[in-house]
C-alpha cells in the first residue's frame, strides 16, 4: 500500500538518530510551523485550486441565492490573506464549516465518525504488532531460512497488493463462501443501537454494557477489516523489526552476551530485543498513523462508518469542505502521533533519558 512506502520514507526522518538535539522550544516552534503549513496547504487546496470555490462547495447545480450566500460564507469578498486568517480562526475554534450533504457541522460529523476509525485502527495495530514483531525477529535470527522467506513474501505481498482489493477478496472468501465473518458494517443490522455508546467503539461499548451477543457480532464484523488492515502493518512492522534486529545481532554486546554462555533465546530477548523496543514503539506509532491512510479505502470497502468513509462520501458528493476538513484532521492526527512517538522515544531510551 502506498502509505506504507511513504511511511518508510517518513520513518527515517521521524526516528531521531541523535536524540536530544532539538529539544524544548525549537521543537515546539518546528511543530507549530508544520501545523501552520498543514492549514495553509488544506486552505490552498480547498479554496485556491478549484476554478470556482463556491461551485466546489455547492456542486454545479445551485440557485443564485445559495451561490451568493456561500460566496459570503466563504468570505470570498475579502482578500486571500483575510480569508486565510478567517480559516485559521475558524479551525482553532473547532469550526470546520458545514457539510452540504449531511447539513451538519463537519466537526460534529467527524467526532461521531472518529471512534469507529479508532477502533478499527487499534485492532489493526494490535494484529500488526502481534504478528509482525515475532515474525520480524524470527526472520532476522534465522536469516535465509524458510521463515525469513515467508516474512519476505508477506512483506512483498503487503507492498504490492492493493488494500481495497485484498479487502474485497477477503469478503468474497470469508463472508460469501466460508461464512466465517460478518458482512459490511459494524454489527448485524438488528443489533444496531442496542448498546449505549460510551466510547463509540462498538466492542468496548458492548463489553461495558455486558451484552455479549452484540460483542460477538461486533467482533465478527471487525475481525476481517482489522486483519486486512493489520496485514499491511504486519508487512511493514516485520520488515522494520527484521532490519533493526539484524543490526543488533552483529553488535559487539551480542557477541559478549553469547560469550557469557547465554542461550540463544536469552541473547535474542534479553539483549537484542531490549535494544529495539523503543525503536519498535516508534514504528508502531508510525504504523498507526499510516493506518489512517489505509482506513480510507478499507472503510469504503467494508462500509465502516468512520472518518475514511466520511471522506469518500464527501468525494462522491463533491463536498469539498468535508474532504479538506477530513484531510486536515488526518494530517493533524498523523503529526500528533509523530510528535508523541518522538517524545516517547526520547523518554524511554536510557541513553537519552
Amino acid at each position, binding site marked *: 500500500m502506498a502509505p506504507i512506502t511513504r511511511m518508510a520514507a517518513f520513518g527515517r526522518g521521524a526516528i531521531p538518530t541523535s536524540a536530544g538535539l532539538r529539544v524544548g522550544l525549537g521543537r515546539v516552534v518546528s511543530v507549530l510551523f508544520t501545523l501552520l503549513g498543514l492549514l495553509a496547504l488544506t486552505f490552498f487546496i480547498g479554496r485556491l485550486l478549484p476554478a470556482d470555490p463556491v461551485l466546489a462547495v455547492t456542486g454545479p447545480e445551485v440557485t443564485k441565492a445559495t451561490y451568493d450566500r456561500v460566496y459570503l460564507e466563504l468570505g470570498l469578498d475579502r482578500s486571500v490573506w483575510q480569508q486565510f486568517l478567517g480559516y485559521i480562526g475558524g479551525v482553532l475554534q473547532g469550526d470546520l464549516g458545514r457539510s452540504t450533504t449531511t447539513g451538519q457541522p463537519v466537526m460534529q460529523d467527524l467526532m461521531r465518525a472518529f471512534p469507529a476509525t479508532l477502533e478499527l485502527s487499534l485492532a489493526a495495530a494490535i494484529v500488526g504488532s502481534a504478528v509482525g514483531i515475532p515474525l520480524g525477529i524470527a526472520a532476522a535470527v534465522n536469516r535465509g531460512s524458510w521463515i525469513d522467506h515467508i516474512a519476505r513474501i508477506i512483506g512483498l505481498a503487503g507492498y504490492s497488493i492493493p488494500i481495497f482489493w485484498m479487502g474485497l477478496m477477503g469478503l468474497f472468501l470469508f463472508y460469501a463462501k466460508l461464512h466465517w465473518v460478518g458482512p459490511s458494517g459494524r454489527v448485524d443490522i438488528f443489533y444496531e443501537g442496542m448498546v449505549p455508546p460510551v466510547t463509540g467503539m462498538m466492542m468496548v461499548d458492548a463489553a461495558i454494557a455486558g451484552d455479549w451477543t452484540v460483542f460477538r457480532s461486533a467482533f465478527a464484523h471487525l475481525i476481517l477489516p482489522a486483519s486486512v488492515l493489520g496485514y499491511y502493518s504486519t508487512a511493514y512492522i516485520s520488515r522494520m523489526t527484521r532490519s533493526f534486529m539484524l543490526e543488533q545481532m552483529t553488535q559487539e554486546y551480542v*557477541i559478549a552476551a553469547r560469550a*557469557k*554462555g547465554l*542461550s540463544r533465546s536469552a541473547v535474542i530477548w*534479553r*539483549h537484542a530485543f531490549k535494544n529495539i523496543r523503543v525503536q519498535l514503539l516508534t514504528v508502531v506509532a508510525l504504523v498507526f498513523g499510516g493506518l489512517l491512510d489505509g482506513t480510507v479505502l478499507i472503510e469504503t470497502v467494508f462500509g465502516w462508518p468512520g472518518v475514511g468513509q466520511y471522506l469518500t462520501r464527501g468525494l462522491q458528493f463533491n463536498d469539498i469542505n468535508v474532504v479538506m476538513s477530513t484531510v486536515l484532521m488526518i494530517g493533524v492526527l498523523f503529526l500528533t502521533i509523530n510528535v508523541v512517538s518522538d517524545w516517547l522515544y526520547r523518554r524511554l531510551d536510557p541513553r537519552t533519558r
Partner: protein
Amino acid sequence: MSEPRLLQLQDLRVSFHSRDGVVDAVRGVSFSLGREKLGIVGESGSGKSMTGRALMRLLPSTATMHAKTMRFGEIDLLAASERQMCQVRGRHIAMIMQDPKYSLNPVVTVGKQITETYRRHRRTGGRAARDYAIEMLDAVKIRDPARVFHQYPHEISGGMGQRVMIAMMLAAEPSLLIADEPTSALDVTVRFEILQLLDELIQSRHLGVLFISHDLNLVRRYCDRVLIMYAGQVVEEIEADRLNEATHPYTRGLLDSMPRIHRPRHRLPVLQRDPAWREPLTADER
C-alpha cells in the same frame, strides 16, 4: 610441561564467503595453551581476533571454520553441540572484548549484566547473585559498587566499563580467558591500571590467558610466549624474553620499526612486506 594443557588447537582454518568470493581469514593455526599467558600479535586483518572467536565458536554466520583438533581439556570444541558450547562459554572460556562502549549492552544495567553470567552457570537466587555481583565489582576495584550496580553503561567511564566487562566475564570463574585487545580502546592513562588489574586476577585465579594484541611491546612485557601472525598464519612462535632472537623477517621488521628510548633514530624504517610471507607454510615450517 607438568600441567595438562588447557587448550589444544591444530590446523584452524576460517574463511568467509561473500559475493566477491572466498576470503581465508585464518589459514592453519595451531598452538596449545596451559595456565600461562600466550600472546598473539599481528596487524589488523591478520586473523588474530578470528582465531580467538573461533575458539569460542562465536564466528559470524558468514564464516566457516575447520580444524583438525580443537579441545578444551576433555571437551572437544568441534564436536560440542550449541547447547554444550553455551555451558563452555563463560563457565570455562570467557572473552574480554575491546571496547566496553560497544561490548556492554547499553540498555541493561551493569548489575544485571554481571548477575546474568553468574546465574546462568550457578543456578542461584537473585539475592545471592546480587551480593556476588557487588563482590565482583569490588574485586575489579570499582568504588561504590552498590551504586554502579544500578547504573547503565553509558553512565560510567571507559575504564570503569572495562572493569565491569572483566567482572562480567570472570563471574562464573572460567579457567581460560581470551583477552581481545582489552586496552586498545581505552585512554592511555587507564590502560596500565586495567592491565595491572587483569594481571592480579590472572595470578589469583590461576587463569590461562590468550592475549590478542597488535602491540608487540605490550605483549612482550605481558606474556610468557608470543605467536606472530601474518595473513592468517602463525609465522613465528617464540618465548617472550627471547623475542630478540626472532628469525622471521616479518617479526624482525616489526621489532625494527619500533622506537626505542635508548637508541633514538632519526627515522623509523617502514616495514616492507614480502608477498612470499602470504604463501602457505609447509608442514615443516609450522
